[in-house]
Structure formats: structure tokens, C-alpha cells
């Protein structure tokens, strides 16, 4: 009990390092003048990269538990964490100029962002209901504050308020579910919970706890009917923050779902499967339908995010390792596409002008054929048209659904993707077929230009050679 060994801490070395680094960034930021704020930016990026290196060094093949089984490090955790560092790195990079142009280039964005990353890491590595809650709240609180970063903006404040209130309710639901599970099983540790539940038929109380937990998860993922916060927050938050919210936290939410439902309550699979089916069908259908009606691209992408959540649930609900792997693949693919999508919104915006309306994309092909092409890749990929990454993600989850005898669900999926194709096509129509109203050339820093090109080309490249990423996900889940 008391012999504290160093070996016991190494699985959590990346988290511990990042925490130290954040504190350092926080302190240094205090002494940095506003005009030198770029230093904070570089320090934040450096922290992420160092954490990445440490994670790479601590990778091992077996599953390791630490801190009296509160914490777990396994293949899935490693892959997702690395994806989170990279996604956040890209977010920070895209956000830099945007924040500067709007006079909110503050250290808080980066420290909160890093705290969010820490929360995600803890969430991913949770092996205990309390650790899950801890990680989730660290992440959520950081995000609430980030949404309110532009504090003089009415829409941001409104979005932050909505996000906070609804998020708090969701956390409450989750916590309530956890307390019931604890009451039934007498344990908070996921492995114990799993063994207590076993394969028995659940009583009323256990079902009750399960439903509350799923409500909490659905809230965080933004699955219909718990999606109401998502469009408002995506639209109201500064685009740089929307970019952040829409990317890495999806990976953490996916991990939370795996930890709770698979690691903790796999014995109840046939019970949670039905709930997830309903969530998936509603999310795919409603998300795609409502996206058509949007005139604001951030809101449109928010509804598109909801529909993508529906698709990624398809893999999880099969309850097989392959299914989890395909969902993970889908989530990674979505994060990459979402980064690019919101990245383009940032790129087209400039001081005093937000490229939020669909009409702002008119004639982009005349203004900049290259970036119009990049956006085209992203849109077709989101629509699930080959040869882009999004197609393989859809193919993978649909294949899993069919493998598990739910052909009808696959058909619902493809029908909703037909509906979805329409609004992605509309963006391409605006960019390629319409005359530009705003003919000013795009202005953005070289690092942004390189990164967004790289981002979009990665969607194409991984679409041409998806085998590696797919194998990575399968290995990560299989352990």
C-alpha cells in the first residue's frame, strides 16, 4: 500500500509532464507582454510535442494499470492520445492568426486548451468511474471558459452560458448514473463493475444507471436527442474555439464511451445496443436533414458533426472489437476532416470579417483555385465519396453493421448519407459555380497555408492508402 514505486507512475508520465508544463506556461505567460504573446504559443506547442515524445517512449505492448487501478494505459489510449496532441497542435496553429486579429490572442486560450488536453488524456486513460468524471470535468470546464473567451461578444457569452448549463446537467446525469452503478455493484473500478455485472439479466436499478450513463455520453458526443447545445455553441463560439471543440474532444468522448460501455458494462451489451441504435438513427437522420436548412457554415458543420456521431455509433453498437476499431477509425477520420473544415473557415475570415455565411464561399475557385480544391476534398470526404478518407470510414462502419446482421441499419445509414451529400455539394456549388462577390485575395500566414494544405492532402492520401490507419486502429483495440 505504502511502497510507492516509480514503475507505478510511468504509464502516467505524459500526463504528469503535461501538468508540469502547463503550470510552467501559465507562470511564464504572466511575465510576457502582449506583443510577445507568441512566446506562449510556442511554449504551448513545445509542451504538446514534448508530451508526444514522452508518450512515444512509454508505449508498450501490454496493458498497464497505475494508481491503484484508477488509471490504465493501453493501445487505444496511446493512439488516441497521440491523435489528440496532433489535433491540438493543428488547432493552436490555425487559431494563432485568428485570435490575434480579434485581440483575444491571450495566454488563456493556450493554457485552457492544454488543460483540456490533460482532461482528455485522463478521460482516455480512466479505469475508474471517478477518474472518468475527473477527466470529463477538467475537459468541460476548460471548454466552457474557452467558449466565453471573447467576453464582449454577446453570441459567445450566450453560447458559453448554454454550454455550461446543459453540460452541467449532462455531467449531473452521468454522475447520477455512476452513483446507481456503484450502488448496485459496490465498486467504482471498471474491471470490478464489469465482473459484478457479469452476464446476468439486469435489474431495474442497473438499467436505470445504464440509461443515465448513456445520456451523459450522448450529451458529450452530441447525439440526437441530446444535441441541442451543439449548433448554438459551434456557431456562437469564436471559430478558433469551435475548431478546438469539434476536433480532439470527439476522440475523448469516443474513449469515454468505450471505457464505460465496453470496459465497464459489456455484460449489458444487448441492452445498450438498442439505445445506441436509436441514437444513431436519429443522429444520422436529423443531423443531415437539419444541416440542409442552415445558412451559416459553422452551424451547418455542427449538424454535420451530429450526423457523423450517428455514424460512429454504428461501429460501437455492434459490440465487437472490429466494430470498436472501425468506430475509432471513423472518429480519427472525422477529426481530421473537421480540423480542415473549420480551418478553412478561419482561413477565409480576417480582421473584422467572419466567413460564416455560406455565401462567403461564393466563387472561391476564382479567388484561390488551390484552397477551393482543398475545401472540395474536405467536403467530398465528409459526404463519403471515394477516394477520400471519409468514404472508407463510412464503408468500415457499414460493413460492421452488416456483419452483425443489421442490414436495415446500413440502409438507413446510406440513405442519410444521400441526404447529407446535398449540403456538402452546395458548398462546392458555391465555390465553383457561382461568381465571387468578395474578390479580395486570401491572406493568411505561410504556416497556416502549409498546414491546411497538408491537412486536406492527408484526407486524400489516407483515402488512397487507408490500410495503415485501419490496421493501427484494429491493433489498438485488440491490445
Amino acid at each position, binding site marked *: 500500500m505504502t511502497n510507492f514505486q516509480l514503475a507505478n507512475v510511468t504509464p502516467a508520465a505524459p500526463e504528469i509532464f503535461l501538468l508540469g508544463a502547463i503550470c510552467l506556461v501559465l507562470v511564464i505567460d504572466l511575465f510576457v507582454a502582449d506583443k510577445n504573446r507568441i512566446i506562449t504559443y510556442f511554449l504551448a506547442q513545445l509542451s504538446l510535442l514534448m508530451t508526444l515524445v514522452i508518450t512515444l517512449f512509454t508505449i508498450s505492448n501490454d496493458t498497464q494499470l497505475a494508481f491503484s487501478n484508477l488509471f490504465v494505459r493501453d493501445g487505444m489510449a496511446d493512439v488516441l492520445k497521440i491523435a489528440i496532441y496532433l489535433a491540438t497542435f493543428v488547432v493552436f496553429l490555425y487559431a494563432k492568426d485568428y485570435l490575434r486579429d480579434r485581440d483575444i490572442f491571450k495566454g488563456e486560450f493556450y493554457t485552457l486548451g492544454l488543460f483540456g488536453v490533460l482532461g482528455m488524456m485522463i478521460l482516455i486513460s480512466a479505469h475508474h468511474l471517478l477518474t472518468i468524471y475527473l477527466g470529463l470535468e477538467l475537459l468541460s470546464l476548460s471548454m466552457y471558459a474557452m467558449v466565453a473567451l471573447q467576453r464582449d461578444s454577446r453570441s459567445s457569452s450566450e453560447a458559453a452560458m448554454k454550454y455550461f448549463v446543459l453540460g452541467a446537467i449532462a455531467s449531473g446525469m452521468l454522475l447520477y448514473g455512476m452513483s446507481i452503478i456503484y450502488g448496485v455493484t459496490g465498486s467504482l473500478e471498471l474491471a470490478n463493475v464489469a465482473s459484478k455485472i457479469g452476464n446476468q439479466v439486469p435489474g431495474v436499478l442497473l438499467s436505470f444507471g445504464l440509461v443515465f450513463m448513456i445520456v451523459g455520453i450522448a450529451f458529450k458526443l452530441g447525439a440526437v436527442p441530446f444535441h441541442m447545445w451543439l449548433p448554438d455553441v459551434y456557431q456562437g463560439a469564436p471559430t478558433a474555439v469551435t475548431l478546438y471543440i469539434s476536433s480532439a474532444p470527439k476522440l475523448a468522448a469516443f474513449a469515454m464511451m468505450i471505457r464505460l460501455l465496453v470496459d465497464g458494462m459489456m455484460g449489458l451489451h444487448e441492452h445498450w445496443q438498442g439505445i445506441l441504435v436509436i441514437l444513431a438513427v436519429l443522429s444520422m437522420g436529423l443531423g443531415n436533414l437539419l444541416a440542409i436548412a442552415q445558412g451559416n457554415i459553422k452551424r451547418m458543420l455542427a449538424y454535420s458533426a451530429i450526423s457523423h456521431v450517428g455514424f460512429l455509433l454504428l461501429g460501437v453498437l455492434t459490440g465487437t472489437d472490429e466494430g470498436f476499431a472501425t468506430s475509432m477509425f471513423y472518429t480519427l477520420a472525422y477529426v481530421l476532416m473537421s480540423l480542415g473544415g473549420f480551418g478553412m473557415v478561419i482561413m477565409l475570415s480576417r480582421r473584422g470579417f467572419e466567413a460564416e455565411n455560406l455565401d462567403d464561399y461564393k466563387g472561391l*475557385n476564382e479567388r484561390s*483555385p488551390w484552397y477551393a480544391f482543398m475545401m*472540395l476534398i474536405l467536403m*467530398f470526404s465528409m459526404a463519403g*465519396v*471515394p*477516394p477520400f478518407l471519409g*468514404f*472508407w470510414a463510412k*464503408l*468500415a462502419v*457499414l*460493413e460492421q453493421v*452488416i*456483419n452483425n446482421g443489421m*442490414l436495415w441499419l*446500413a*440502409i438507413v445509414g*446510406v*440513405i442519410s*448519407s*444521400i441526404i447529407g*451529400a*446535398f449540403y456538402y*455539394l*452546395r458548398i*462546392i*456549388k458555391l465555390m*465553383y*459555380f457561382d461568381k465571387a462577390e468578395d474578390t479580395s485575395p486570401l491572406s493568411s500566414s505561410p504556416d497556416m497555408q502549409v498546414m491546411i494544405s497538408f491537412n486536406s492532402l492527408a484526407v486524400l492520401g489516407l483515402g488512397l*492508402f*487507408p*490500410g495503415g490507419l*485501419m*490496421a493501427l486502429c*484494429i491493433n489498438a483495440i485488440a491490445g
Partner: protein
Amino acid sequence: MFADWPLLSLVIWLPIFGGMWVLLSGSNDRAQYARLIALLVSVVTFLVSIPLWTGFERGTAAMQFVEKGEQAWIPAFNIYYHLGIDGISMPLILLTTFATVLVVLAGWKSITRRVAQYMAAFLIMEGLMIGVFAALDAALFYVFWEAMLIPMFLIIGIWGGERRVYATIKFFLYTFAGSVFMLVALLYLYFQTGSFSILDYHAYKMDLSVQILIFLAFLVAFAVKVPMWPVHTWLPDAHVEAPTGGSVILAAIMLKLGTYGFLRFSLPITPDASRELDWLMIALSLIAIVYIGFVALVQTDMKKLIAYSSISHMGFVTLGFFIAYRIYDNTGSYDGAVMGLEGGMVQMISHGFISAAMFLSIGVLYDRMHSRAIKDYGGVANRMPIFVSFMVLFAMANAGLPGTSGFVGEFMVILSAFKANFWYAFFAALTLILGASYTLWMVKRVFFGEVANDNVAKLEDINKREFIIMLVLAVMVLLIGLWPAPLIDVMEATTQNLLQQMMTSKL
């Protein structure tokens, strides 16, 4: 000498990379440069595709020029980069490489806006279409099949006519909607067989009810592409709004993808369902031939008229494929059924040339007059005698005049239809009247009579570039019409084999 070359990969990727080269190298101020590179790439691709014909071994139904990666392309799904061609796909690949050269030439002067993007889109699409014909892995097939929509979507949307946005979104959504059901069917087959190999699917046995579902899923995808009545409505819109090159590719190649799908997927994978539902296919084909033929008669827009005539002619192709079961049941021998199938295939190739020629001819007129309405013309023959000579030849071919390629396929199908049922042949033969009516009536109104107005009076005859295009097409139309034997010879073994697969129950 080419036996060891990865010829198929070459004809797929050469135009795709060539297209990217055009895209990156030519901006609007260097339009001529983009045109020249595009011409170079398309001609080289055509030359590279010729050994596919000369080196093709007749008399075997096995896949040739096969390329299959040692390692799976996507190991998780057992997807291979697997290419190969037989007597069905090889002529279509040559048709594609041939048509693309013409399209590049046809857009030489008439496209002045974003030339590089235009040329690049056609080259990339060429590679993707060849990929569809060459793919032997269903997932690879689907990737090419869907990816092809992207350049076509842009071609119609950017360089099209007034209602281009409506037309192109309709085109995309129709075809996309059809295709995703095919995807579900393919995923189901993968789930059953553990493989995406089309050849494995050919050997896989299924219950009738499963076969019927799979057949219907394929039918949705392919019927939209062919297009068959009643999902044909995107085609006239797309054709009318597309630039000339887009119309040519649509009619000459893209429609063939649907009928090719029947040959490669529906018939051999679900033979019992095909037998069970052949009444449906025959009915839809006859409706396309007769009803759409009447619709074509009343069109006032030349392009729309040819678009409807395309649908009607494609009805012959599907009719030729699906009467095979009844012929076999009636006669007990393969001969009549083989003729029907081969007639359908010859019709595919022949329609590729004829529709390309028709749309290019209308493009020639449109470049000069900027109108497609029949009423704006009249007496063109007085001003453009050379052009009209060609045009009349193509119109005759479209009407199925003996001696032209249009006759061979239709005649073979009608002849074999008699062995299935007199009435099939009767209705199919109506096209000889209908086709002649709508085509020749249009020719009369547009080309003959007095010079209708001042615009017509100012017309100038075709230039050298246009003359070469017309000449090449005329030679092909006459060649296939007078001497179809080499073409049929190439298809023979594959057709026999396909018929064997169709008639062998997989229950």
C-alpha cells in the same frame, strides 16, 4: 512485347497524373499550353491502350493483362489492387481513350474559361472510367465508380449552360443515390464471402431471395447510370446543360458503365434472380425503346432530342442482355442468346461512336450559333455542305441504316428477340420507324430547306480540326457497320462464358 508491362495501370494512371500536370502547370493565361499538354497526354494514353487490342488473346474468356498486388491494398478488408480485362471491357477501354482525344480536340476553341481545369477534369475522368472497366476488385471498382462523379459534377457545373447547377446536382444525387445501394450489396457479399474479388462473387452460391435483393440493389445503381425508364430524368437535363465534351463523355462512356455493370455484376453474380426478374428488365427496356422514342420525337432542343434517343438506344442494350433467358428456354441452344448479348455489346460500342458524333456535331453548330433550338436553324446545308454530309451520315447511323454501326447492334437484338417472343421483336422494331422519324425530321428541319435567318446565312463550314474529328468518327461508324467481325470476334469467348454463368443456377 508489351506482355510484361502493367498496361492497365498505365492507361489508368497516365491520364490521372497527366491531368494533375495540366492542372498545376496551366493557369488561364497559359491556356494554349494546357491544351497542348492535354492533347499530348490523351494521345499518348490512346497509343498505350492500342496494345490492349493487338495483344488481346481471342478465344479465351479468362481475364487478361491481369495485375494483382502481392500485398492487399487494404488488408483489413482484404481489398486488392486487382485489374484485368476480358472481351467485354477491352473494347470499352479503347472507346474511352479514343473518345477522350476527341473531347480534348472538341473543346479546343469553344472553352475559353479555366481551360486547364477543364482539360484536367476530362483527363482525370478518363483514368477513373478506365479504372471502372478494368477493376476486378469490387471495392476498387466502387472507388473508381464514385470518384468519377466528381469531375463530371464540376464539368457540368462550371462549363455548362444556364440551368447547369440544377442539372449537375440532380445528376450527382441520382447517381450517388443509386450507387450507395450497390455498396450495401457489395458489403453484404463481402460479409458472405470474405472477399471483395468480383471473380469470387461469380462463383458464390446464394438463395433466390438473397439473389433478388442483391439484384435489385445492383439494378438501382446501374439503371440510374444506363439510364433506364423511369430513373432517366437526370440525363436530358445533364446533357442539355453540359458542355459539348461533357455530353460526349456522358453519352459515349458513362452510360456504358451501367450496362457494363449488368454484364460484370448482375448477370453472373445473381443469374437466378436475373432469370426470375427478366420480365421486369424486358418491360423497362421496351418502355425505354418505344416510349422514350416518342418523347424524342417532340423535342425542340437538339441536344435533348439526342439525349432521349440515347436512352432509347440503351434500351436495346438491356433488352439484348435480358432476353437471353427466354431465348434459351424457347430454343434450348445458346446461339440465339449469344446473338442477343453480342448485339447489346456491339450496340454499346456503336452508340459510343454515334452519340459522340451527334453531340460533337451539335457542338459545332452551337459554337457558331449559341443555340440548340431546332427552330433557330434551317437550311444549314446551304452554308456548311461538308459538315452536313457528315451529319447526315451520323443521323442515318443513329436511325439504324444498314451499313452503319447503328444497324448491326439493333439488327442482332431484334433478330434474337424474335426467338424470345414475337411481340418483343415487334416493339423493338418500332424503333426503326421512330428512330428514323425523330432523327431525320430533325435533320430536315435543321439542315435542309431555305436558309432560315441571317445567323444561318453567316455560318462558315467546319475547319480542319473539326473535319478531322468528323472524319475519324465517320470512319469508325462505317467500319463497324460494314465489318463488325473483328469486334464480335473479340467478344465471342467472353460472351459464351458469360452465358454459361447466366444459365448455371446458383441456388
